[in-house]
């Protein structure tokens, strides 16, 4: 027991180093939240310039041109009513990858993009919006080896993301997707929906 206690104390000490990198500081915040510490989590957040779960921040220039209201929170993650977690790319790349209907048009084929910012507007009618960078189309003349497999939801896109942001509402999101770079130019985008949009026009058993 003494050995465990000592190791835990050394771990806390290591996590609490003032010169530790931002990732470790984020870990310490989570660690303190889970196991408690003398310093309150809120104190830690307010005294720390690194990203925390949710707090007011200065609006980045490319986001400011998209939103009119500057009294917003930029959150690290958002959990919807069904319990699905969305994160910004800086927090968790996998949770930031979403297939969404452009402009909320449900007749359109969902397009892939990565959430760069989660914008929370405080107040009585609080709203959440995502600022998303879309996955650019595959380079011209590139081969899509997934094309012959029509019932496999994989498709080739570029490894690059669009430099401009699009505003996406949470209910425009169709599903998460998985991404893997085949080479320097091509990325596989694999939609992880277990519903699939073609059911809208079909007779569903259950």
């Amino acid at each position, binding site marked *: 027991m003494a050995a465990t206690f000592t190791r835990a104390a050394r771990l806390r000490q290591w996590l609490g180093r003032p010169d530790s990198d931002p990732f470790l500081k984020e870990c310490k915040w989570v660690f303190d939240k889970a196991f408690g510490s003398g310093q309150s989590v809120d104190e830690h957040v307010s005294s720390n310039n690194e990203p925390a779960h949710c707090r007011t921040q200065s609006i980045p220039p490319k986001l400011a041109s998209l939103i009119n209201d500057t009294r917003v929170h930029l959150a690290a993650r958002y959990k919807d009513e069904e319990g*699905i*977690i969305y994160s910004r790319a800086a927090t*968790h*790349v*996998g*949770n930031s*990858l979403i297939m969404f209907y452009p402009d909320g048009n449900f007749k359109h084929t969902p397009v892939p993009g990565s959430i760069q910012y989660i914008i929370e507007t405080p107040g009585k009618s609080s709203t959440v919006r995502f600022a998303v960078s879309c996955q650019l189309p595959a380079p011209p003349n590139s*081969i*899509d*080896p*997934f*094309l*012959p*497999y029509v*019932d*496999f*939801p*994989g498709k080739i896109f570029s490894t690059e993301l669009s430099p401009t942001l699009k505003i996406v509402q949470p209910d425009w999101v169709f599903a*998460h997707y*998985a*991404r*893997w*770079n*085949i080479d320097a130019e091509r990325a*596989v985008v*694999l939609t*992880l929906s*277990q*519903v*699939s949009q*073609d*059911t809208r026009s*079909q*007779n*569903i*058993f*259950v």
Partner: protein
Amino acid sequence: MPQRKYGTPAVMERIREVIRDMDTPSWLRSVPRNFGLAAAGSIKADEWRALATVYLPVALVSIWGEGTNHGSKENEASLRQVLDHTMDLVCAISLACMNTMTPIRVASYRRYILSWVSKVRVLHPKSKLSLNYHMAIHICDFLQLYGPVRSWWCFPFERLIGYLQRLPHNHKAGV
């Protein structure tokens, strides 16, 4: 003539590379990064599902699919045949695991699984057909009768078996 081996070290390494480097949401079941090595242990049913529908197809298509080079035309054609055959099974599993079921999906599942079962002995002559192959064809009847597999699959029982196996016991039947 000895049967060709497809699970070469290069293929296994590609599968591990995909498992390691793919960006996935946190809800997707993770699989052992050392898949294929003895240290990975036995793969659980849910892990096989994630492997079969996400990691394996991406790895195999990237290494054997259109645009890849394998020395000779014959070699490429042979690997493409095996890939197409594997993708029949992948598509069948992906369709069967959908949370909504439609007549078109049931028909597609039947087409894929029949195509896969019929070619197993052609492409892998030394493989033995087991009851599971026959059972896989009957799944379309159950999809039609009971809807999506999520409603009637055995994962809850698998979890219960796992729970019972982990219970401390003294190897004697209790009363």
